[in-house]
C-alpha cells in the first residue's frame, strides 16, 4: 500500500477549505494566507504527480482502489493518464493565482454581524472547488466522477452569486439581482445537464453492472459487453449533454456570459479555465471510451455545433460592450475548438484539444485577471468607459496586450500550438469544417484588438487619468502566466510528451486511424 498520492492531492485543498472556513471572522488576512499556502502545497503535490507519472507506463497510473458503495457497484477508484495529469497540473497551477488575484475581492464592505465571514467563505469555496475538480480529473469510476462533477456546482454557485465585482458591490440592488440570476442560471443549466446524465449513469449501470471505467472500457473493447446500438446512443447523449452544458457548447452556452460577467474576475477564471475543463475532459475520457460507436455516430452533428460555437462565439464577442462578457464569448469560441479537436478523432486533433485545454486555461486566466485588475481600478465593466490606459498604466496595458495576443493565438505563444494542431487535425479528416473554422482566427484578432484599441489606446479618458499601474501582487499574478504562455509556445514538448500516449490510447479506443497523407497513400 503506497502513499495515496492522488487522494492527498485532492484531500489537501478540501481540508484546507474546512480550515479556512473555520478561521475566526477577525483574522481575515490569516485566512487568505492559509488558503494561499494550501493551494501552493497542492501545486507541489500536483507537480509530484507530474514527476511520478511515467508517460510510457500503464495507461492509468498512481491508481488507488477501495470498496465504497457495493450496492451501487461503486468503487473509490482513482488513476491518472497523461491528459488528467496535465489538467490536474493546470488546475493546481491556476488556483494560487486565482487566490492571489482575488486577494481583496471578498473583504467585507461594511462590518456586518460578526458571524458573517465572506472572506473566509470565499477562499474556502475556491479551495473546495479545486478539490472537487482535481478528484473528478482523477476518478476512474463513473459514479465517483459524477458525484463530484455535480457537487462542484454548489461551491461554484455560491462563488458566483455571493461575491460580485467591487464595482457592483452588494449595496447595488440591481447588480445583486443580476448576480443571483446569473448564479441560478449557472446552477440550473448544469443541474439539468447533470440530472440527465444521472439517468444515463443509471442506464449504464443497468447495462454494465458496475461503474469502473477500465472494466467497462475493456469489456467494450473485447466485446464481452455489447450494448444495443440505440441503448449506447441514448447513454452517450445523456453523458454528452451534461458535458456540453459544462463545456459549454452552442446552443447550451448562454449561462457562461452571465456567470462570467457577474462573477469577480478570479471566479470567472475559475469557471472557464478550471471547472469547464472538466466538461471537455469528460468528453475525451468518458464519451469516447465508454461509447466509441455512438461517439462516431454523433461526430458530424457535434462537429457542426462546435463549428457554430467557434464562429458564433467570436462574432458575439465582437458585439459585446462588457469586457468580461467579451472574454466569455471568446471562451465559447475556444471551447468550440477544443470540442472540435476531440471529435475530429485524429491524433493531432486530440493532442491539440488537450493542449488547448491547458493553454486556454492559462491565456484566459492572464487576460481575465488583468481585465479584473483594470475593472477594479475604474469600477466599470463597460469597454466604453476606458480609453488611453496605455499612456497612464503601460505595464497593465502591456500585460493586457500579451493576454489578448495569446487569446488570438499568436504564433510563438502557447495557444497557437494547440489551435493549429486542432485545425490540422480537423482539416485532415473534414477539410471543409477545418477551413471554415480557420475564419475563427480572423475574428479572434478582430475582437481582441478592438478590445485593446478601445480600452488601452487613444486619448486618455478623464476617469482613467489617475489610474495606478499594476501593483506588486498583481505583477506576481500576471508575470508567471505570461512567461508560461511564451515558454509553452516555444517548447510545448513537455506537455505533448505526457499527452501523446494517452491520445494514442483514446484513438485505439474509438478504433480510428489518422488519415494517411495523399502522397504516402499513393505510394
Amino acid at each position, binding site marked *: 500500500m503506497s502513499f495515496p498520492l492522488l487522494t492527498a492531492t485532492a484531500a489537501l485543498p478540501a481540508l484546507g477549505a474546512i480550515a479556512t472556513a473555520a478561521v475566526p471572522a477577525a483574522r481575515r488576512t490569516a485566512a487568505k494566507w492559509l488558503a494561499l499556502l494550501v493551494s501552493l502545497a497542492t501545486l507541489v503535490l500536483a507537480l509530484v504527480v507530474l514527476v511520478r507519472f511515467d508517460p510510457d507506463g500503464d495507461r492509468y497510473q498512481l491508481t488507488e482502489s477501495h470498496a465504497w458503495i457495493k450496492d451501487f457497484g461503486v468503487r473509490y477508484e482513482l488513476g491518472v493518464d497523461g491528459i488528467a495529469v496535465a489538467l490536474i497540473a493546470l488546475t493546481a497551477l491556476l488556483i494560487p493565482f486565482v487566490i492571489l488575484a482575488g486577494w481583496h475581492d471578498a473583504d467585507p464592505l461594511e462590518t456586518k454581524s460578526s458571524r458573517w465571514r465572506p472572506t473566509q467563505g470565499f477562499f474556502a469555496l475556491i479551495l473546495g472547488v479545486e478539490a472537487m475538480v482535481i478528484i473528478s480529473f482523477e476518478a476512474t469510476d463513473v459514479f465517483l466522477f459524477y458525484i463530484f462533477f455535480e457537487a462542484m456546482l454548489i461551491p461554484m454557485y455560491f462563488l458566483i452569486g455571493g461575491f460580485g465585482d467591487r464595482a457592483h458591490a452588494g449595496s447595488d440592488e440591481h447588480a445583486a439581482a443580476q448576480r443571483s440570476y446569473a448564479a441560478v442560471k449557472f446552477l*440550473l443549466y448544469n443541474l439539468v445537464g447533470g440530472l440527465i446524465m444521472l439517468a444515463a449513469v443509471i442506464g449504464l449501470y443497468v447495462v454494465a453492472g458496475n461503474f469502473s471505467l477500465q472494466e467497462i472500457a475493456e469489456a467494450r473493447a473485447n466485446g464481452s459487453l455489447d450494448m444495443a446500438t440505440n441503448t449506447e446512443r441514448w447513454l452517450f447523449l445523456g453523458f454528452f449533454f451534461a458535458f456540453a452544458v459544462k463545456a459549454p457548447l*452552442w446552443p447550451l452556452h*448562454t449561462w457562461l456570459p452571465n456567470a462570467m460577467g457577474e462573477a469577480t474576475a478570479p471566479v470567472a477564471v475559475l469557471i472557464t479555465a478550471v471547472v469547464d475543463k472538466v466538461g471537455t475532459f469528460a468528453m475525451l475520457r468518458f464519451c469516447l471510451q465508454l461509447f466509441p460507436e455512438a461517439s462516431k455516430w454523433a461526430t458530424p452533428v457535434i462537429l457542426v455545433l462546435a463549428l457554430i460555437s467557434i464562429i*458564433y462565439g467570436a*462574432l*458575439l464577442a*465582437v*458585439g*459585446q460592450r462588457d469586457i468580461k462578457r467579451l472574454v466569455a464569448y471568446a471562451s465559447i469560441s475556444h471551447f468550440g475548438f477544443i470540442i472540435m479537436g476531440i471529435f475530429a478523432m485524429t*491524433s*493531432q486533433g486530440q*493532442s*491539440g484539444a488537450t493542449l488547448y485545454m491547458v493553454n486556454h486555461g492559462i491565456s484566459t486566466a492572464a487576460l481575465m485577471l488583468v481585465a479584473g485588475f483594470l475593472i477594479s481600478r475604474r469600477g466599470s465593466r463597460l469597454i466604453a468607459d476606458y480609453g488611453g490606459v*496605455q*499612456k497612464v498604466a503601460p505595464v497593465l496595458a*502591456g500585460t493586457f496586450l500579451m493576454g489578448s*495576443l495569446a487569446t488570438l493565438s*499568436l*504564433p*510563438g505563444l502557447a495557444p*497557437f*500550438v494547440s489551435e493549429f*494542431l486542432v*485545425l*490540422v487535425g480537423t*482539416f*485532415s479528416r473534414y*477539410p471543409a469544417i477545418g*477551413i471554415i473554422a*480557420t*475564419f475563427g*482566427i*480572423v475574428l479572434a*484578432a*478582430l475582437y481582441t*484588438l*478592438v478590445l485593446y*484599441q478601445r480600452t*488601452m*489606446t*487613444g*486619448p*486618455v479618458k478623464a476617469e482613467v487619468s489617475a489610474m495606478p499601474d499594476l501593483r506588486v501582487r498583481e505583477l506576481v499574478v500576471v508575470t508567471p502566466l505570461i512567461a508560461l504562455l511564451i515558454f509553452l509556445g*516555444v*517548447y*510545448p*514538448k513537455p506537455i*505533448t*510528451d505526457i499527452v*501523446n500516449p494517452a491520445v*494514442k490510447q483514446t*484513438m485505439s479506443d474509438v478504433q480510428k486511424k*489518422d*488519415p*494517411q*497523407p*495523399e*502522397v*504516402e497513400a*499513393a505510394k
Partner: protein
Amino acid sequence: MENLIALLVAAPLLGAAVLLCGGRRLDAVGHVIGTVLAAVSFVIGAILFADMLGKDEEHRAIAQHLFSWIPVEGFQADVAFQLDQLSMTFVLLITGVGSLIHLYSIGYMEHDERRRRFFGYLNLFLAAMLLLVLADNYLLLYVGWEGVGLASYLLIGFWQHKPSAATAAKKAFLVNRVGDMGLSIAIMLMFTTFGTFAFGPVLESTGETSEGTLTAIGLMLLLAACGKSAQVPLQSWLGDAMEGPTPVSALIHAATMVTAGVYLIVRSGEIFNAAPDAQLATTVVGAVTLLFGAIVGCAKDDIKKALAGSTMSQIGYMILAAGLGPIGYVFAIMHLVTHGFFKAGLFLGAGSVMHGMNDEVDMRKYGGLRKYMPVTFVTFGLGYLAIIGFPGLSGFFSKDKIIEAAFAKGGTEGWILGSVALLGAAITAYYMTRVMLLTFFGEERWRNQPTASPADPSVEPAAEHQGAHAEPHPHESPRSMTIPMIVLAFGSVFAGAFFGIGDRFMHWLEPVTEHAHGHPPIGATTVTLSTVAVMVIGVGAAYLQYGRRPVPVVAPRGSLLTRAARRDLLQDDFNHVVLVRGGEHLTRSLVYVDHTLVDGVVNGTAASMGGFSGRLRKLQNGYARSYAVSMFGGAAILIAATLLMRAV
C-alpha cells in the same frame, strides 16, 4: 558555422526582450543596445556570407536543427533553420537596411520619451523577419510571418494616443490575418498532402500529387502573399500604415516586411511551377496592383502615402515577376533588393523632410526645399532616379528585366502583362517626378501659412515654444540621420549595375530558384529602349503639370479619377460599407438573437413552467369538499384503470 544562424535571430530577439522588459532604467541606453544588436546580427550575416562565398555553388546551403517544436503523433514541427543563397540575400538586406534604420531612428526619435520601446519593437521585428526567411519549414515561417505582423502592428500604432494610428495598426493586423488564414490553410493542405510542411520534402515531392491540390496550395500562398505584401485585394492597410513613424515605413513597409510575400512565392517556386493557374493568378494580381499602386501614388498629396502607393506598385512588379516562374524569380528578388535600397532611401528622405518641417506631410505645403536640406535633396534625388529606372541606376536594371520577362511570358498574356508593366513604368516616372518637384522645387509654399497637421508629440515641447501656428524652419537633419541616407543612396545607384552586369545575381541565386532565360518576342533591346522612352514621357508629363505651373496649396477638386485615387480608388469605402458596416449589423443582430432566441427558449420554458404551476395550484382552492372530489374522482379512475388493465 551552422550554429551562427541561430545567433542571427537571437541577437535582435535578446535586444527586444531586454528593451521591453528592462523598464525605465534602460531609457538612457536603449537605443544604443538596439542599434548595436542589430549591427551584431548584420556582422554575423556578413560572416556567414563570406563563408558561403567560400564554398562552391552546390554546397552553399547550410542548415541548423535547434529542437523538435511540436512532436505529436504523425505531426513533426521543428525549430530548424536553413540558410541558402535566397535566405542569405534577405538576411543581408534585412540586417543591413535594418541596422541603418536603427541608426537613423536614434536621431529621428530623439525627443520621444518612449524611444527605448521603439527600439525594442524594431529589434523584435528584425528577429521575426529573420526567422521568416531562415525557417526551414512553413510552420516556423508562419511564426515569423505573424511575428513581423505583430511588430508592424506595434510600430504602426506606436503613437497609440492618436486614434488614427491605433486604427491603422488594427487594420493592418486584421487584413494580414486574412492573408495568414491563407497561409495556414496552405500548410494544412501540405500536411494532408505530403504529411509534412518542411521545405525540402514538400518541394521535392510536388511531382507526386495532383495539379489541383498544388493549385489550391498555390492560391492559398498567394492569398498570404497578398496580405503581407499589400497586393490587391488586401492592399488597403499599407496606406494607413504610414501613420507609423517614418523609419518604420522605410524598414517594414518599404524595404523588408512587405516583400515577404515575394519571398514566399519564390521560395515555393516548385509548387507554382507545377500549378500554372496559380501562376497566372499571381501575375494578374501583380499586374493589377502595379497599376493600382501607381495610380494611387499619383493622387496622394501626403508624401508618405504617395511613396506607399509607389511601394505597392513596385511590389506589384516583383509579384508579377514571381508569377512568371523560373524566368522571373531571379528578377523579382533582384528588384526586391534594389527596391529595398532606393525605397528605404526615399522614405528616410521623406522622414528627414518632415523632420525639418514640423512633421508636415502635405507636399503641397513644401516646395523649394533643395537649398535648405541639400543632403536630403541629393540622396532623395538619387533614389528618385533609381526608382524611375534612369539608365545605369539600380532600378533601371531590375525593372527592365522584369518587363522583358513579362513580354517573354509569350502569347497574349505576355503582351498584356508586358504592356501593363511598361505603362506602370511610365506612371512611376510621372508620380515620382511629381513628388520630387512638389518637394524640392517650385516656390516655397510653406512660408507664412499655418502648419495644419497636429504637431507630433515627440516634438511637443518644440512645438510649444514655436507656437502651433509658427511657420516651419526647414533645416538639414543630424548626422545620424543623413549617414544612412547617404549609404542607401549609394546602394540605389550602384546595386543594380553590380547585380545586373554579367548576371552576377542570377548566377548567385540560380542554384535555389533555377533560372530559365526568357526571350521576349520583341528583342530585349527594344524593350529596354521603350522602357526608357515611357520613362521620359512620364517625367515630361509631370514636369509640364507641376514644374511649369504654380502648385495650389489647397488641392484642386480634380478629375473623377483623381478623386477616386485620393480615396484609394474607393476600395476602402467598399470595405467600410460591406465589411465593417455589414459586420456590425451582423454582430448586433446576433447579440439580439442570442439574447432573445437562444436564451429566450430556456427562459421561456422556465416562465411557462411557472405559469403552468400557477394555474395548477388554483386547484388547491382550500375547500375540503373539492379535495374530497378529487379523491373520489381519483379513486374512480384508479378502480377504472385497474379494471381496464385486466380487460386489455
